[in-house]
């Protein structure tokens, strides 16, 4: 998996490209910003019908998410990521400890005024169409009819569903449902967005667009908490991550700090002859260094796929223009 620094240089040429943003992520305020989410010894134990402990889903979790950062909860299936998000949303109650959002208890409904939530699967009413869906959720935020109309259109444009806005959601593909799910999460222009597996069900283009959007939201000053088991997604967009395993926090910190290998130096160069490479080897030996690898780097499958699709799109557009 590429780090943001290792992305193919061709993609950096496009100013709109996400990789440009990935190359130079907006500096998160990190440990200095206002605390938006805080958990204190947060523990959740699922019980059976008789009240006996069944699963300890989250164990004494302590973490903070600060304003303006993208925070990733990472872990394998069943590690407690979704449970943590549900605890923060008040869909579950802590067994012990506290979950605070905007300094309010997570069960306080008023905090939801400033929150947007995209569930793991887009749990929406399938008998509504896109416009009705957004209008319904807009009403739940007490928005006026005019506000709802303009915001609905804005979001439908954003998720590119204008062409299908009058179709019932039951006719939507999984990717389309995810997009309208994201639109509903943004209906109130939230300060904090919680995304549960945001790229699930999306094709590579959709995934990239979702990641672009997450970064864009962060750049607009919003705080994003996302959970995923897809490492690439987390690595691409998150400023800080927490790694959970079996409900316990295993690692917490900035992505670049956690991923940087301090005793290895990586050099990338273009247009070197074999003689020049040999000379570099000798220099390393002279300085008692150990050459780990010297090879031509490969791109990621995601980058390759996107390149092919974009080239194909450009060719078709050119052909159409010629005709």
């Amino acid at each position, binding site marked *: 998996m590429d780090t943001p620094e290792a992305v193919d240089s061709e993609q950096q040429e496009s100013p709109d490209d996400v990789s440009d943003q990935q190359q130079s992520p907006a500096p998160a305020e990190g440990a200095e910003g206002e605390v938006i989410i805080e958990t204190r010894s947060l523990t959740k134990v*699922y019980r059976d019908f008789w009240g006996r402990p069944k699963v300890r889903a989250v164990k004494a979790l302590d973490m903070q998410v600060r304003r303006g950062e993208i925070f990733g909860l990472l872990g394998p299936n069943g590690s407690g990521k979704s449970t943590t998000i*549900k605890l923060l*949303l*008040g*869909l*579950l*109650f802590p067994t012990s400890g506290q979950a605070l959002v905007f300094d309010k208890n997570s069960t306080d*409904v*008023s905090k*939801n*005024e400033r*929150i947007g*939530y995209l*569930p793991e*699967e887009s*749990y*929406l*009413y399938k*008998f*509504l169409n896109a416009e009705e869906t957004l209008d*319904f*959720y807009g*009403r*739940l*935020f*007490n928005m006026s009819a005019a506000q709802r109309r303009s915001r609905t259109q804005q979001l439908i444009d954003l998720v590119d569903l204008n062409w299908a806005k009058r179709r019932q959601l039951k006719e939507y593909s999984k990717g389309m449902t995810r997009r309208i*799910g994201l639109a*509903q999460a943004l209906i*109130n222009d939230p300060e904090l967005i919680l995304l549960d597996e945001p790229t699930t069900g999306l094709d590579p283009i959709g995934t990239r667009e979702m990641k672009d959007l997450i970064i864009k939201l962060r750049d607009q000053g919003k705080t994003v908490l996302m959970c995923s088991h897809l490492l690439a997604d987390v690595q691409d967009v998150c400023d800080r991550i927490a790694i959970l395993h079996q409900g316990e926090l295993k690692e917490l910190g900035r992505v670049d700090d956690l991923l940087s290998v301090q005793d290895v130096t990586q050099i990338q160069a273009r247009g070197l002859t074999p003689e020049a490479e040999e000379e570099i080897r000798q220099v390393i030996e002279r300085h008692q260094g150990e050459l780990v690898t010297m090879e031509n780097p490969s791109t990621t499958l995601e980058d390759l796929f996107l390149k092919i699709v974009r080239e194909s799109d450009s060719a078709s557009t050119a052909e159409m223009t010629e005709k």
Partner: protein
Amino acid sequence: MVVDPSEFITFNEWFPLAIWSYAKIVLLLLSAGLGICFAIAVVRHGPTEAIYIISRAVTGFFSRDGVQVSPRRVIALAQLAIKESLRRRVLVVFGVFVLVMLFAGWMLDVESDNPARLYLGFVLTMSNYLVLALAMFLSAFSLPNDIKDRTIYTVATKPVRPLEIFWGRVLGFITVGTILLVVMGVVSGIFVHRGLDHRHQVETTSADFDSELKRHSGETSRDAHHRHDFFVDEETVIGGEIIGTTDPIVKEHRHQVTLKEDDSLQIGRPQGSLQARVPIYGKLFFRNREGQAEDVGLNVGKEWTYRSYIEGNTLSAAVWNFSGVDETKFPEGLLLEMDIRVFRTSKGEIEAQIPGEIILRNPNPKPDADPARQACMPIPFAATEFAASEVFVGLDQLKFQDVSGQLKPLNLFEDLVDENGQLEVWIRCRERAQFFGMAQADVYLKAQNNSFWMNFAKCHLGLWMQMVLVVLFGVFFSTFLTGIVAMKATLATIVLGMFSGFLADVHSGEVAGGGPLESLFRNTTQQGVTTDLDVSEGTSAVMKTTDRVYLRSMMLISGHLPNYPEFNTIRKVAYGYDISHHIIARHMVITFGYFLVLSVMGYFVLRTREFAA
């Protein structure tokens, strides 16, 4: 028509008693709810934290969630519930209704003596059951489905308060039920009107003219499975037209007969089949054969004690004390409607009517009043069995006998009605060894007829309130039960509510055969309900005690559930009686009472449940 004694209580009499009972129940529920929640919180978090949790929940309701309800959110959730109902093929119910209506003619007895009663009873009962079933299905499954499909996640993570979720669902389903009920009401109205509407022609062969009396008479053609006799007096001119009528009443209606200028007779549409009589009920007490006052009359050996009997040709009398009798209500006299039962101890001529007499008496005469002027001379009538009969007592019919034995006129309002507008009506049976049976509702003063269609609408209001109650219970149960269990719980409330009277009768022993265990045993061992159980004393005691505990707990539950039969005013409409505004007001208050309690209980359940668990 059998009238529940509770109907004689006015709203003003009922309300203070009801509000007191309601307060006691609310207090009991509140204490039980808080106690259970506190106990659970103590086990989970310890006593100090438990006090904090409970106080925060209670203050949260009064300071925030209970008062900051957004109508926009409630309406949004209600509209969602409506769309969901439409998606769940709610129109199928209406389809079933229309389909049954189309073929109703095949099922109803066309030869019925009272087609209006039959038609009204049929359409209103069908509307009632369909709407209740619909309300039960819609309300019980909605929220559980949302929780199962997890669509509730996207709602509960918005600033939606638990009370808004509850009210939104309730409002949505009530709206669906209301629309359906209105449409069903209109279709029912058309069905009844068309079903009863018919025309007759004059049977020319029977037409006759009495030149002495100047009276046309004859028979109508046989249409709608009946025919009428009619007469038209040429001297009876109303509105410039010579008007007559069919007589007697057949199938509870008459027709107006008009003599046209060309001497032809035209028979009009049926009249009187759809009516809403407004009865003024009095308080009933009895006089025994010695003329002394008693609360009840004789028991002639009937198990059903609804009616009491008076003995003929004795001083026995049934006495009604009516209030509010004044000249504005009865400017021409009193119209008494009577539904008197006859118990014969000698067969005689079985079809002959039993003679009786009516006496009007001043219950509180002035001290200086002439004793002879305190009661009128007996007015004779004949009791018609199994049918209501009308007796009109005109002002000029009231006489008294002075000391010289001469009959002199009495003034109803000055001599017989006391200062408080009260009047006593005494009814006696004249024939020896025969008995009249009467209940409080069997004799009443008829003030005027109200609009039948208004009464029809009021009956639908009763059905609507039943539907509201079912929706409330359905949504409440769905806040903590799965769909199918919530539906069964709602059904149980309906069944218990409908049969609470029966449960009480079984418990009191009025219905023989014992409780479920005993009756099951009797059924399987083929033992009659009135015989002693053929088991050992110990087994019998165990069986009866188990039944008693079971019935008592069922009665305790059913006593706090809506009494659905009380809301059911179909019989009143079908029998042509106006539904009093006292009854409607009482039902509305009861419905509102349940609305408040179930809303608060629903709020706390939603507030304390984990949607994602």
